[in-house]
């Protein structure tokens, strides 16, 4: 049998397979170049970029919890200008689409960062983070109020001609409402989910473990929540979806596709296994071979309920 067709098209971005790396877990790409072939994965998403460089939160910033980890990095990043000068040239030479993840501290900043990325060669699309639980201003406000989300997404839309992906927060009562608001405002695709707000306590010291007190939970522990949200949104919104949350292997990734995702992002798994994204793409392909399926696209939303 011929090798199965693993390619997908997401909001106009053609990817050799559905596996992307998740923002904040893959640095700016080069960090992982020794461990996997960057040209074997579908796309790379950069660490969240802001207008000015951002210091991030005090330490400790991470702690392990059963089946997951909490992080309160606080969106530390080099800032949009340094990214363009120092990180993008390397990424440009890699034959894999690069999605720039961005956020703003204010509404205007979202627009400004998006416009600086517009027209830049080497950036295939942008992913707007309206869902970071670790920064006081911005982020979460836009991610939990449908009105604010609509506002920020329409502003970014006016400032970019690139495919616009909006990354949703799970920290809401009704994710479908948020998804619809973003769709109405002009999003071309939706990513879900970002981390779930959580907390860890040091019983001996009687203090929170993280300096920031709370952090974002990621890893296998959040997969069932992420799957449920992808499935709910897939039924309600016509946009292509990117499934994120606790994907550790090819089977996890395919479950997200059955639930309605066109592509997936691999986050925490890259910390345990720096070649995870490449391995997951191979495992997905092997599943298709084993089951005589000739295109991965035939699995998108194929869940029987």
């Amino acid at each position, binding site marked *: 049998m011929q090798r199965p067709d693993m390619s997908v098209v997401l909001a106009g971005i053609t990817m050799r397979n559905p596996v992307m790396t998740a923002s904040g877990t893959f640095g700016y790409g080069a960090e992982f170049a020794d461990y996997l072939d960057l040209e074997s994965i579908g796309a790379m998403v950069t660490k969240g970029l802001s207008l000015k460089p951002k210091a991030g939160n005090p*330490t400790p910033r991470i702690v392990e919890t059963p089946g*997951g980890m909490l992080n309160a990095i606080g969106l530390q990043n080099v800032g949009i200008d340094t990214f363009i000068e120092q990180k993008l040239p390397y990424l440009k030479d890699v034959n894999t689409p690069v999605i720039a993840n961005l956020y703003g501290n204010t509404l205007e900043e979202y627009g400004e960062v998006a416009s600086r990325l517009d027209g830049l060669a080497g950036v295939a699309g942008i992913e707007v983070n309206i869902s970071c639980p670790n920064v006081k201003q911005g982020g979460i406000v836009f991610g939990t109020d449908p009105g604010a989300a609509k506002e920020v997404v329409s502003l970014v839309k006016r400032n970019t001609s690139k495919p616009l992906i909006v990354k949703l927060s799970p920290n809401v009562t009704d994710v479908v409402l948020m998804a619809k608001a973003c769709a109405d405002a002009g999003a071309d695709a939706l990513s879900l989910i970002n981390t779930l707000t959580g907390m860890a306590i040091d019983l001996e010291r009687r203090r929170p473990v993280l300096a920031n007190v709370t952090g974002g939970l990621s890893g296998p522990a959040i997969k069932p929540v992420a799957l449920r949200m992808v499935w709910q949104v897939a039924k309600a919104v016509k946009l292509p979806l990117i499934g994120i949350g606790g994907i550790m292997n090819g089977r996890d990734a395919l479950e997200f596709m059955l639930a309605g995702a066109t592509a997936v992002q691999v986050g925490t798994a890259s910390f345990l296994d720096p070649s995870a994204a490449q391995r997951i793409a191979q495992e997905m392909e092997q599943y298709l071979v084993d089951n005589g399926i000739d295109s991965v696209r035939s699995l998108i939303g194929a869940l029987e309920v």
Partner: protein
Amino acid sequence: MQFKSMVISNVEVSPNYFRMRMTAPQELSSSVPGQFVMLKVNDAIDPLLRRPFGLFDVGSFVPEYAGCGAQVYCEILYKVVGKGTKLLSTLHHGDLVDLLVPLGKGFQMGPAGEEKVLVGGGVGLAPLYYLAKQLKERGEKVRLFAGGRNRDDVLCITEFERLGVETYVATDDGTLGERGFVTQVLERHLASGMRIFACGPTPMLNAVAKMSEKHGVPCQVSMEAYMACGVGACLGCVMKGANHSDETPDYRCVCKDGPVFDSFELQWS
């Protein structure tokens, strides 16, 4: 690089302290003391993250199987403190672990002729042994100042002595060597023309960094931080650089910019 490694031996050298020898890739023979490994204790999702350990020793051995050539091994020296290290202590000869090696920036040995002063607390002696070995191979004069809470915390002193390292020991309770902090012993011996290499608990490194500044002796410290990726991608392991302030943030990645830093690069309390 990522490497599936086989445990060769794993023995308790002092209550709660283990020394584990593992097969290693050829590349590790050119590793630098102070570099570290990230080890996945098992395939399960609990514990989820890899655990970082300094390289205690790297060398070569000839396996007992017929026809085998020399192979590289590496060793770690670790203290059982929690879930991951507890599991690690149950591994036996023949078990497999997944390693990322060699990570981070190690010690810079500096010009020949100076006296090399190693300062270690507890399990902080681990990377210093590999360093001492290389310094002695270069024919340098090496002194070790080792500290711990009690005699059980002072590890592998005879190994250092076997290398020809002059050793000074201090324990909080006086059960081995002098009673008190090792930094007090160190201070009596500090003089110009020395170079300090330190690894251990942060308060100890803090004291050593201050002392080195006072005496004008160059000092490198090996730092610890909670790590997730080990390769500079997650930004979980950062610490404050010397010029850090809220307005001009200066965070250094312990895994990528360190774990070994010149002491003046960091902000001390």
